């Protein structure tokens, strides 16, 4: 019985390791490829062991860029992506927590219709309303700007609903105690509701940051200048070169760099993130 138990565990571990290998191998290849000489890769002689060009490849990637048509340093692309992802995540949280506060705690005319309007925008993601959105952003002269990259993606029904659900679990007595303690609506929001929403905000931040970081279609449409392109667009442009070899080490280095911020955010906020998803005690 005990032996069988041990055998079963062994099998389970083998299966898990195979799974990990399947997921991790491409990442490993990307890291290895980013340290090798381009000529070797182009000849199909890429080694599975790390090469010796780590520093020069990453230096070129971050500060110089490819030698082909898009000569944008990846460092700049990362900055663009970072600004966009942060603006989307912070903006979404700010807007949705305020609108959820209004919907849950205030009785104003057309409260429920407004709630339902927010709710049905769930059915209209960016891809569906891309033309009108593009038109508006173009008319506002926000093409090739950070505002144009982030603003249209900030409004979020999902986050509003999430905060609404959370606010509805906050006991009414807290609001009443605040009122008796002389806290007005803004004080209650700032002193009580925001601190209580901390873990929810963290969880949402992780999700939204990754969502913003991985945006592809929208930045592709509204950025034309090289110095405004995000890293996701940059990778794509590096791969398709017209009259030169694709510089695979740099492409791979860019891919590795593109992975780092989301990984960093997840690792840094993991504890809060998990608590935000599972927490029930208020």
């Amino acid at each position: 019985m005990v032996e069988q138990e041990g055998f079963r565990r062994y099998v389970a571990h083998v299966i898990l390791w195979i799974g990990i290998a399947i997921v991790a191998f491409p990442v490993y290849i990307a890291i290895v490829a980013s340290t090798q000489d381009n000529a070797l890769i182009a000849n199909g002689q890429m080694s599975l062991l790390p090469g010796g060009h780590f520093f020069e490849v990453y230096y070129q990637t971050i500060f110089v860029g490819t030698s082909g048509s898009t000569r944008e340093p990846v460092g700049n692309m990362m900055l663009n992506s970072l600004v966009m992802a942060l603006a989307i995540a912070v903006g979404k949280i700010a807007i949705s927590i305020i609108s959820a506060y209004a919907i849950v705690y205030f009785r104003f005319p057309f409260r429920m219709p407004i709630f339902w309007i927010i709710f049905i925008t769930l059915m209209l993601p960016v891809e569906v309303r891309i033309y009108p959105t593009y038109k508006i952003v173009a008319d506002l002269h926000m093409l090739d700007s950070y505002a144009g990259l982030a603003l249209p993606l900030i409004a979020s029904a999902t986050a509003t609903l999430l905060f609404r659900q959370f606010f509805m679990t906050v006991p009414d007595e807290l609001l009443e105690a605040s009122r008796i303690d002389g806290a007005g609506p803004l004080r209650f929001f700032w002193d009580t509701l925001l601190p209580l929403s901390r873990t929810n905000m963290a969880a949402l931040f992780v999700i939204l940051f990754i969502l913003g970081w991985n945006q592809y279609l929208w930045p592709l449409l509204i950025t034309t200048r090289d110095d405004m392109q995000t890293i996701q667009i940059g990778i794509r442009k590096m791969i398709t070169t017209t009259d030169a070899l694709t510089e695979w080490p740099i492409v791979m280095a860019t891919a590795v760099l593109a992975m780092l911020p989301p990984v960093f955010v997840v690792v840094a906020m993991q504890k809060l993130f998990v608590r935000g998803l599972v927490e029930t005690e208020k």
Partner: protein
Amino acid sequence: MANVTLRNVRKTYTGGFEAIKGVDVDVADGQFCVLVGPSGCGKSTLLRMVAGLETVTGGEIDIGGRVVNQVEPADRDIAMVFQNYALYPHMSVYNNMAYGLRNRGMAEAEIKTRVEEAARVLELSSMLERKPRQLSGGQRQRVAMGRAIVRQPKVFLFDEPLSNLDAKLRIAMRVEIRKLQRRLNTTSIYVTHDQLEAMTLADILVVMNGGQVEQVGNPLAIYEKPATTFVASFIGAPPMNLMSTRPEEIRSQLAGSGAADAGILGIRPEDFVITDQTPAGGVALPLTVEAIERVGAETFVYGSRQEDEQRVAATPGELPPGEVIVRIPGTEAPAIGQKIRVAAVRQKLHLFSGDGRTRIEA
């Protein structure tokens, strides 16, 4: 320090439901007023109207000579203790108590003095840095009390503050609250559904039923002379035995006094004696013993009467028809199934009109 006066206070919800149907109560300065009644009787609503958490749709609420119908809760100079304590979960005990003072722009030094004084009184001094979730139920309750007393308000409002505590702690906290209120001498209004809490705490007891006041007064006076059958069965445990005066057995015993037009006769369990004699003007009942409860110092005998008409006006807490509870001291008790005879003297009889709404003095 202030008196609280409610004048014909009404609450009608949109939709027409009338939760409070005209309540008049006068709580003098420093008095401890308890609102008691079954759930849904409107006592909590009434308290929340005094706090300013519910709007007043009719009548006037007067705190310290000022009509506060339109005044924000924060400006009424009241402090409230909630049933679930409503402590701010993310703030330390100290900040929970200090929050209301800070919002009023009080100097930190003064806040510190007040909070530390309250913590000393409530034995919370060693816990000021803890968060509410690190405290036990009784400690949270004390923090909620502390939050109220640091404000030094004109009026304390308590909304069933002890109902989340276990029985032992509840009794201890009940005494604490009473002592604290005596010491601070602050006018207090306290809501509970527990008649024992109501009896022990109140200077002035308000018994409510269905959005109306059934009786107001000194708790013992109410116990001795309940104005309606509702009050009679609600105040006192076990409840007063209520029976119709129509059966010949009872009618004949009451005849010849002013009790002739009474419809309902009430006798408290503790006023019965097991005896073969019938006191002059009193009432004696033959019973068959159905059940016995021994609680040590006293014993409750549940007996049934043999008669046809048993049903009396329906009131909460009423006994099953025909059942009579007798309280006797000690643990000596008749056997189950035994036939006994119990009697109560004239002075201990409570007589009510047939609908139970009026007390008849005979």
